[in-house]
């Protein structure tokens, strides 16, 4: 298919409008109507802003929306869950980071905080809850046990939940203090900030 490349002038600037991908058409000079000029002018402004700030504006806005309303799924396995509850409570108010809405259903959640040691009997449940969460989704391994098994180096406990689900942030501590978990959530926000749209589709479970 042959698509033309339009060259026109808006407000004294010379603008070339090309179809996405490799342009194969002829270059034609054309005078556009006012409405078209306004739309293109706005996009040009956006593109100039993106060049200026060196960011993708749409991506930045989407990521901003994603990272400031991280809804965790209620998934407390052990004593770390107590610290997680303390993080939600008034003193270490996690709502300051938009992550206070603990959902009972994984289908409404964005992030799974694996709080505590995960036994091999619990592993299929963990995997199922992760699979039930809609994309994009993230996992925080909270505490030593969820990260690497911790003191429970035995037959019953999964030696790190990264054997079952892809983990984004590991939070150290036994159990981690609420400040540490908040730091982990902020690390996740930093990570989401740099994510490209659709990047989660490349993530695969181990």
């Amino acid at each position, binding site marked *: 298919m042959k698509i033309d490349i339009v060259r026109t002038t808006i407000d004294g600037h010379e603008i070339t409008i090309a179809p996405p991908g490799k342009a194969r058409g002829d270059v034609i000079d054309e005078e556009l109507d006012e409405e078209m000029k306004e739309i293109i002018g706005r996009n040009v402004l956006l593109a100039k802003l993106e060049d200026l700030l060196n960011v993708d504006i749409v991506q930045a806005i989407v990521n901003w929306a994603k990272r400031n309303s991280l809804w965790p799924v209620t998934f407390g396995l052990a004593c770390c869950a107590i610290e997680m509850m303390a993080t939600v409570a008034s003193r270490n108010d996690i709502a300051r980071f938009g992550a206070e809405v603990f959902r009972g259903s994984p289908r409404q959640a964005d992030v799974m905080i694996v709080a505590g040691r995960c036994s091999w009997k619990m592993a299929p449940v963990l995997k199922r809850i992760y699979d039930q969460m809609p994309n994009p989704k993230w996992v925080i391994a909270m505490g030593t046990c969820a990260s690497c098994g911790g003191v429970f180096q035995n*037959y019953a406990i999964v030696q790190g939940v990264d054997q079952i689900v892809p983990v984004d942030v590991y939070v150290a501590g036994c159990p981690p203090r609420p400040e540490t978990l908040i730091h982990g959530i902020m690390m996740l926000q930093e990570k989401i900030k740099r994510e490209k749209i659709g990047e989660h589709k490349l993530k695969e479970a181990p």
Partner: protein
Amino acid sequence: MSLETEQIPTEIARTIQTVERLKNQLGQWAVEEVKVHNNEVTVVVKRDSLTEAMRYLRDEEKFEMLVDATAVDYLPLQDEPRFDVVYHLLSLTHRLRLRIKVRIRSDDAWVPTVCHIYPSANPYEREIWDMFGIKIEGHPNLKRILTYDEFPGHPLRKDFPLFWQPGQPLDKPEKQFEEW
């Protein structure tokens, strides 16, 4: 203060009286050993008379409550009989506690169920089966309770490799697991 110090021996004495009556009921051969240690009375009975002993203790001696049922593996300490199955009884009427033990050999590892006498024994006996591989004869629902159904072996046995993880061979020496 003096009241309390007097009470402790009386309770033991009452428990020992109970044990004497149990001996008379079952016959002397059924009770292997009676131990008093740390103000606690332990009776070791033969496996064949366990059901009878439990029924007698519940109905006649008013030990209404089975507090706990578990097992012990004495592998490094003694060869055979290797396992002890332990029942803890509580009499709410007489305010007494009694521990019943049954000694089990590993090549003949089973005990009769006490589910029909104490219904609370049901999950405890499943745990004994799951953790020690001691078969509970006559149990209505003898399945694994703590580990998953496909779990190989019985993890609280002393010869079970502690650091084993799913997907690894079970017969690996303990040292290799530690290195892993």
